[in-house]
C-alpha cells in the first residue's frame, strides 16, 4: 500500500527512461572503439548475448538451428533472453555498465542507436562489413544499396546489422520494382450485404449512398429485424479511432486522403512532386471532419468508437449488431455472420461539393529496415568471431529456419522448383500435437533477420493468409490508389533532426488526434477555431520544424537515389 519504493511504478519507469537518457554509458571502454579500424583480436570464442524472444519461445539453448550455426562458426553463445520488460532490463544493464557482448532482438530506435553509438557503447560495424568477414551480408548490400543506406547513420557509421521483412506483392507475382508492402492499405472496410438486399439497396459507391444505407440500417433497426437481437441494438457503423487495421481512416478517401497511423508520423503526406505536408492542416481535412460530424450527430457512427478496444469491437460485430466496420479479414471480425458481409470499396465524396468525384486512398509506408536488432557492445573482445556467426543469417534457407523452424520439423521437403514446403496443419497436429502456428512460435528467433522479397520466389512460399491478403490488396484495393507516392520509411535523419522529432512528435500526434476526435463529436471547426488550431500546431507542437526536418531528410534521400 504505502511502501515507498513501489509507489507509482509508472513514475519510476519514466524516471528510469529519463535517467538512462542522462547517464548514457558508464563503465570503462574495453576496446578502442569506433575509430574506423578493425579489431583483429580473435581470441574470444564464448559470448554473452542479451535480448528479446517471443513469449511462446522454448528458449535458445538447445535450439537446433542456432546450435548448428554456433558450431559452424566455432563459437559458443550464452543466451540471456526474456519476453517481457525487456526495455527496462536493457536500460538497467546499459546504465549500470553491465554490458553483454551483444544485444539481440531488442529493437533499438535510430535515436537510441545514435546515442549509444556516439558514447561508444555500441561498436561501429562499418569497417567489419567486408567480404572477408561477412561475405553473405556484403553480397546482399552490394545488390541492395537501399538497405545499406537505411542502416547507415547520418555520420556514415553503422551500429547494427540490418533486419526487416519485405512482404510485398512481389511475393504474388508483381514485378519487384512495382511491388507494394502488405501494409500499404491496412483497413479493409466491409458492409452487411444481407441487410442491403433486405432493404433493396446496392453496395454504396459514394459517401452519400453509404450515408443513406446507414440511415436505413438504423431506421429499420436491422440488427433486431434481421438477426432477432434486442430492439435498438443496431450499430450502423462502428470502428476504432485512428487504429491500425480497424480505424475510420479509410472512409476519408472520399475527401482525397487516408491519414493512416504509420511508422513515420501521423498525417504525413508526400505529394507526387516531392513536397512534404501534413494533411491535418489541409482544407480537405477540415471539410472531411465537418462532414463526418453530421454522421456522428445522426447516430450513424458508434459513440464508443473513440474508446473501444479491439475486443469490444469484435464482441459487437460477432453479435450481429453492426452494419459497417473495418478489419483485415471479414471472417475474423464478423464470426458466424461473416457470409453476410462484402468488402465495401473506398467511396467518392459527397455530391454538390468539390469532392464529388474524389476518391483517393493514400499509401501507407511499409516497415523499415532496422539496425536495432543486433548491436555489438564495447565489451566484446573479438567482434570478428561474433560477426562471422551472424553472417550465416543472411542466407535464404537459414533465415527461413530462424523465422519459422528447422528443416525436418517445420519444413518438410522441397518441391520440383526447389521451394521449401512448410508443414500442414494436419501434419503438425498429428506429429507434434500442436498447430503449425504454435510449432513456429516455439522456434522463432528474434534478431537480425533480413527476409528479402525474392526469397518468397526462390526459397519458400509465403503463408496462405498473407497471400490471400496480398491478393485482396493487389486486386481489390490498389486500383483505388491513384497516387502511389508515400513518405519513405527508410529516410535517415541527422542527430539534430532526431532530437527535433523526438521532442515534437508525441505532442503533435496527440494534439491532432485529440482535436480530430473533438470536432467529430462536437461539430467541425469555425474559421476562428481552425486558425487557432493551425497556430497551435505551429507554435506549440513544432509543426513547421517537423515539416522542415522531414522535407530535408526526404530531399537528401531522393538525391542519393
Amino acid at each position: 500500500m504505502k511502501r515507498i519504493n513501489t509507489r507509482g511504478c509508472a513514475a519510476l519507469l519514466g524516471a528510469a527512461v529519463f535517467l538512462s537518457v542522462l547517464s548514457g554509458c558508464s563503465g570503462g571502454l574495453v576496446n578502442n572503439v569506433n575509430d574506423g579500424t578493425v579489431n583483429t583480436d580473435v581470441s574470444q570464442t564464448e559470448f554473452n548475448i542479451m535480448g528479446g524472444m517471443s513469449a511462446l519461445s522454448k528458449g535458445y539453448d538447445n535450439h537446433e538451428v542456432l546450435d548448428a550455426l554456433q558450431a559452424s562458426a566455432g563459437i559458443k553463445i550464452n543466451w540471456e533472453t526474456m519476453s517481457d520488460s525487456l526495455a527496462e532490463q536493457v536500460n538497467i544493464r546499459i546504465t549500470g555498465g553491465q554490458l553483454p557482448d551483444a544485444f539481440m532482438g531488442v529493437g533499438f530506435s535510430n535515436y537510441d542507436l545514435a546515442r549509444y553509438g556516439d558514447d561508444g557503447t555500441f561498436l561501429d560495424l562499418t569497417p567489419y562489413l567486408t567480404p572477408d568477414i561477412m561475405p553473405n551480408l556484403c553480397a546482399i548490400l552490394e545488390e541492395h544499396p537501399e538497405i545499406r543506406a537505411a542502416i547507415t547513420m547520418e555520420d556514415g557509421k553503422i551500429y547494427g546489422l540490418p533486419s526487416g521483412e519485405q512482404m510485398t506483392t512481389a511475393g504474388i507475382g508483381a514485378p519487384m520494382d512495382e511491388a507494394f508492402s502488405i501494409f500499404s492499405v491496412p483497413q479493409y472496410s466491409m458492409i452487411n450485404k444481407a441487410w442491403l438486399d433486405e432493404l433493396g439497396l446496392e453496395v454504396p459507391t459514394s459517401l452519400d449512398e453509404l450515408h443513406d444505407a446507414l440511415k436505413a440500417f438504423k431506421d429499420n433497426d436491422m440488427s433486431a429485424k434481421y438477426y432477432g437481437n434486442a430492439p435498438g441494438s443496431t450499430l450502423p457503423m462502428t470502428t476504432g479511432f485512428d487504429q491500425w487495421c480497424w480505424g475510420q481512416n479509410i472512409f476519408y478517401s472520399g475527401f482525397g486522403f487516408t491519414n493512416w497511423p504509420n511508422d513515420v508520423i501521423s498525417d504525413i503526406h508526400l505529394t507526387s512532386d516531392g513536397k512534404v505536408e501534413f494533411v491535418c492542416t489541409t482544407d480537405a481535412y477540415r471539410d472531411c471532419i465537418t462532414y463526418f460530424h453530421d454522421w456522428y450527430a445522426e447516430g450513424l457512427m458508434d459513440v464508443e468508437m473513440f474508446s473501444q478496444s479491439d475486443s469490444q469491437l469484435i464482441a459487437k460485430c460477432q453479435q450481429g449488431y453492426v452494419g459497417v466496420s473495418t478489419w483485415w479479414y471479414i471472417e475474423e471480425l464478423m464470426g458466424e455472420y461473416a457470409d453476410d458481409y462484402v468488402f465495401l470499396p473506398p467511396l467518392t465524396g459527397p455530391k454538390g461539393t468539390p469532392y464529388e468525384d474524389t476518391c483517393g486512398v493514400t499509401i501507407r509506408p511499409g516497415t523499415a529496415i532496422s539496425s536495432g536488432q543486433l548491436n555489438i557492445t564495447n565489451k566484446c573482445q573479438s567482434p570478428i568471431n561474433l560477426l562471422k556467426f551472424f553472417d550465416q543469417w543472411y542466407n535464404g534457407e537459414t533465415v527461413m529456419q530462424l523465422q519459422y523452424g528447422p528443416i525436418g520439423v517445420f519444413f518438410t521437403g522441397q518441391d520440383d522448383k526447389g521451394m521449401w514446403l512448410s508443414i500442414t496443419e494436419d501434419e503438425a497436429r498429428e506429429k507434434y500435437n500442436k498447430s503449425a502456428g504454435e510449432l513456429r512460435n516455439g522456434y522463432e528467433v528474434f534478431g537480425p533477420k533480413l527476409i528479402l522479397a525474392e526469397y518468397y520466389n526462390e526459397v519458400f512460399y509465403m503463408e496462405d493468409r498473407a497471400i490471400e491478403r496480398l491478393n485482396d490488396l493487389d486486386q481489390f484495393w490498389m486500383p483505388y490508389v491513384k497516387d502511389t507516392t508515400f513518405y519513405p520509411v527508410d529516410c535517415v535523419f541527422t542527430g539534430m533532426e532526431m532530437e527535433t522529432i523526438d521532442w515534437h512528435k508525441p505532442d503533435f500526434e496527440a494534439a491532432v488526434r485529440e482535436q480530430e476526435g473533438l470536432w467529430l463529436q462536437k461539430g467541425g471547426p469555425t474559421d476562428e477555431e481552425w486558425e487557432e488550431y493551425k497556430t497551435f500546431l505551429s507554435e506549440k507542437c513544432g509543426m513547421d520544424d517537423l515539416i522542415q526536418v522531414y522535407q530535408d531528410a526526404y530531399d537528401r534521400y531522393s538525391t542519393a537515389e
Partner: protein
Amino acid sequence: MKKSSGMSQRTSDIILVAITAIVLIIVAYPLYYVLIASVSDPYKVYAGKTFLFPSGFTLDGYKAVFLNDGIVSGFLNSVKYTVIGTVFSVVMLYITAYPMAQKDLPGRKFLSIFFLITMYFGGGLVPTYLVVKQTGLVGSMWSLFLPGGVAVGNMIIVRNYFQNSIPRDLIEASQIDGCSKLRTFFSVVIPLSMPIMAVMVVFSMVAYWNDWFTALIYLGGKGSPLPLVMRNILIKSSATASQAATISGGYAELNKLTELLKFCSMIVAAVPMLIFYPFVQKYFEKGFMAGAVKG
C-alpha cells in the same frame, strides 16, 4: 429511543438495513460480475449481455491458468514472501514507531523530518537498482523486503496511535508497578495496540501479495510470486493472439482466451486475500481500552 422522536425502533431498523443492503450490493456486485465474467464468453460480456448469470458457460480460462506449471510454485512463493514480508515489516514498524512516539527521544524532530523526506523523494528505479545490486541482494528474496521495509506513512500512523490512544497513565502505572522499559513495551504497549497491528498486518500483507514489480526487477525470473506468474500467462496468451493476428489470422478466437484470462487471474489472485481477511477483521472491532483507566 423516545417515542417523540417520531420513528419507531422498527422503522429505523428497516431503513438502516435497507441502506446497508444497497451499499453491500454496490460493493459486492463488481466482484460478482468478475466472477461470472470469468466463466462467460468474453465477447458476450463485452457486448453487454451479461448481467446476473454467466453467458455461455466455459472453464477454458481456469483451465489455462491451472494447467500452467508455474501456478503452484508461484502461489507458494507468494505465501512465503507475504508471511516473511509482513512479519518483517510489522516488526520494523513497531521498533521504529515506538521510539518516535517517546517525547524524550533525543533528536526526535530531526528524525521525523528525516523520515518525512523519504516520503516525498525517491531515488528512482535505476539508482535504487544499483544500490540493491551493490549490496548483493539481486536475486535474493531479501531484495523484496529490505529496501522499503519501513513504510513511513504507516510508521506515522502507528506512532500517532502510540501517542494518542495508549493512555500515558497506563504506562506510568506499569512503571510504578516496577516494569522496565522493555517490559512495558512487551506487556503493555503491544497488547494494547492490537487494533493498529491488525491494520498494519493487513496493509503489508496486501502490499506484498499484490507486488509483482519489485520481484520482476530484482529476482531475475527465479522464484516468481503469483501475480508475476499470472502476468506471464496473460502476456503469453496475448502474444499468441497478436502474433497470429499479424499474418495468419485466428486473432478473434485467440484473443478470446486472453480476455477470459484477465477475469480468471483476478479471481485466482483475489480469493486467498478474501478468505484471509475475516480472520484479521475481528481485531478491528474490539475495544481494548474499555475500563482500563478510571476517571
